[in-house]
């Protein structure tokens, strides 16, 4: 039996990590104030690359007060990082990281460097670089 085709590729129609009919929100989403979807409605790819904007670590004029989790994520964004890196590094579930990252992106503290386009294969120069890297392991 093939996997259901009803799940659209993310980016076009964001996958909901918790459905609307999920009832009481479970603990991990307490740190998002119960929000399960990114504030800007765009679901970041699991390997989208993000980075903190210069000066983005001052939240004096941030209308939405940052939580300790926001600050932990922002600290990890001081170097370029993927969404997966941040989730693994903070121990926060992926869906939670996406919601909190979207807050930081909306407030201008973090920017998306690379959001992978659909179905794009890299050029052979990149594949060759990956091959060389694997062989050197």
């Amino acid at each position, binding site marked *: 039996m093939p996997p259901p085709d009803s*799940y659209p590729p993310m980016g076009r129609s964001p996958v909901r990590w918790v459905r609307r009919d999920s009832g009481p929100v*479970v603990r991990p989403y307490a740190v998002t104030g119960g929000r399960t979807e990114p504030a800007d409605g765009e679901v970041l790819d699991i390997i989208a690359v993000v980075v903190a904007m210069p000066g983005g670590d001052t939240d004096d004029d941030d209308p939405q007060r940052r939580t300790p989790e926001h600050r932990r994520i922002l600290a990890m964004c*001081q170097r*370029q990082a993927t969404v*997966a890196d941040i989730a693994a590094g903070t121990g926060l579930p992926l869906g939670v990281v996406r919601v909190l990252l979207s807050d930081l992106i909306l407030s201008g503290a973090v920017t998306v460097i*690379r959001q992978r386009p659909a179905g794009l294969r890299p050029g052979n120069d990149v594949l060759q670089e*990956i091959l060389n890297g*694997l062989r050197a392991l």
Partner: protein
Amino acid sequence: MAFAPSDHGSGAALTAHKILIAGGFGAGKTTLVSAISEVRPLLTEEPLSTASVGRDSLAGLPNKKTTTVALDFGRITISDSLVLYLFGVPGQERFWFMWDELAYGALGAVVLADVRRLDDCFPSVNYFETRDLPFIVAVNCFDDAPRYDLGEVRLALDLDEDVPLVLCDARDQASVKNAMIRLVESIAAGDAGLASAQGRSLIIGH
């Protein structure tokens, strides 16, 4: 969503690529990912599907509608600006809804097969075949598993001739490395004739 020039942070813009490690429960996905990369658990909160009823004990938790799933997540640094991510895809049917997100934009996949339970990897093979995602099948050589000729395995899996089939010891870094190299080589070979794909990737600045 705001996009910025690539000069923020440390040096060149980071490019991330992902490879999926699929296969049935117990096929050795976790072992394989840990053999070749530093592994950290990646937590996701997933809606509980009806398929999990009877598997996940919900006694005393009448309102529990989601469950935490830990993905195997490995990171291989190729260069300062190029990182390869490995994601172990949960093989059970109840996790299939996660596959499309993980497969989205992936370079390709390694399907781990255990010859004692070959049918466990049928769903993975079907999935990648129907999605046109490049993949290889790696037969994990468990110590206590019978040895079969790869031709027999290919026949049993009804695998196309152009899908590489390799033997692999998921515990052994060199063996896993060779399987990954085989995958990337087959991706490169498949792409060689696709001028349009090459052109597109040049436009976005690879």
